[in-house]
C-alpha cells in the first residue's frame, strides 16, 4: 500500500496537533516543516476538519487544534479519508489467471498493511515518537517558546 502525499501530510498534521492538544498550531508551521505549499496543506486540513479531527480558530494566535480521541483514532481512520481502499481500488479488475494470482498475493500484503494501520492509534504513535526521541515535539516546543 503506497500512501499518497496528501495522506502522509494528514497523518503528520494529526500527530503534530495531537502532540500539543492544548496548543493552537499554525498551518504555516506545518507547511514549512514538511516543505509543502500552504494551499496543499489547507485542502488536507479542511478534510480533517470536516471529519471532526481538527478544529480551527481564526485570527491572531489562531491555528488548528486536535479534536479527536487519541486513544481511539487510528492511522487507518485518517488514511481512509484520503485513500480509496479495496481489491480493485485502481479500478482495474483482474481478468486473467496471472492477474488473479498476482492480485491474491498483493491483496495479502494490503490486508496486513490495513490491519497494521487499524491497530495503531494516535496515542500509540505519540509513544513511538517519544521513543524515537520525539524530534517533532522538540522542534515545535522551540517555536512555541
Amino acid at each position: 500500500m503506497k500512501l499518497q502525499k496528501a495522506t502522509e501530510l494528514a497523518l503528520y498534521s494529526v500527530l503534530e496537533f495531537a502532540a500539543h492538544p492544548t496548543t493552537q498550531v499554525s498551518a504555516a508551521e506545518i507547511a514549512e516543516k514538511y516543505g509543502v505549499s500552504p494551499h496543499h496543506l489547507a485542502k488536507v486540513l479542511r478534510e480533517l476538519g470536516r471529519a471532526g479531527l481538527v478544529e480551527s480558530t481564526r485570527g491572531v494566535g489562531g491555528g488548528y487544534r486536535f479534536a479527536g480521541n487519541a486513544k481511539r483514532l487510528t492511522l487507518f481512520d485518517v488514511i481512509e479519508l484520503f485513500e480509496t481502499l479495496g481489491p480493485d481500488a485502481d479500478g482495474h479488475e483482474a481478468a486473467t489467471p496471472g492477474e488473479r494470482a498476482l492480485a491474491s498475493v498483493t491483496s495479502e500484503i494490503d490486508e496486513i498493511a490495513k490491519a497494521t494501520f487499524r491497530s495503531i492509534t494516535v496515542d500509540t504513535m505519540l509513544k513511538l515518537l517519544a521513543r524515537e526521541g520525539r524530534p517533532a515535539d522538540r522542534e515545535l516546543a522551540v517555536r512555541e517558546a
Partner: protein
Amino acid sequence: MTATDATPAPEVGIRPVEPADLDDIIALDTAITGIGKPDYWYELLHRYGTRGRQQRFFLVAVAEGVVVGYVIGEVRDWEFGQPPCGWVFGVGVQPETRLRGVGTRLLDAICAGFRRAGVTKVRTLTSRENNPILSFFRSQGMMAAPFIPLELELG
C-alpha cells in the same frame, strides 16, 4: 473526561491463578469470545497454573474478589529457530474494566516473570481481525516480529 473515566476504579491485584478462579475465567472468556470452552481452561490450569513452574505463567487480575483479567504465557526455547523468549498466548480483560490499565499491569507482570526466567524479548501472535487485542499490544510498544504466519486448508 468521559463518564467511564469518572467511575472510581476498584483496587486491582495481580497474582498467580488459583483453581477457584477458573469459573470466573471461563465466564470472562465466554463473555469476550462468545464460545464457552471449560475443558480448554481446565487443561490450561493443569499445564500453566501450578505454582513453582519457572517458565510458565498464568496470572489473574482480581478486583473485589472477582477475576477481571488474565494473561498466560511461557518461555519457549528455540521455538521457530529463535533463541529463548517469552510468548504471550492469551490475554483478556473484562470489557467494562478496559482502558483502566489492567491489561498493562498483567503484561508488565508476565514480562517481569519472563525477565526473571532470563529472557529479554517477548512475542505474541494474534489474529489481524482482533483489533482490540492488536491495538493493546501495539500500545504497549510491541512491533512486528520477523515472522510471517502461514496456513493451509487441509480440506
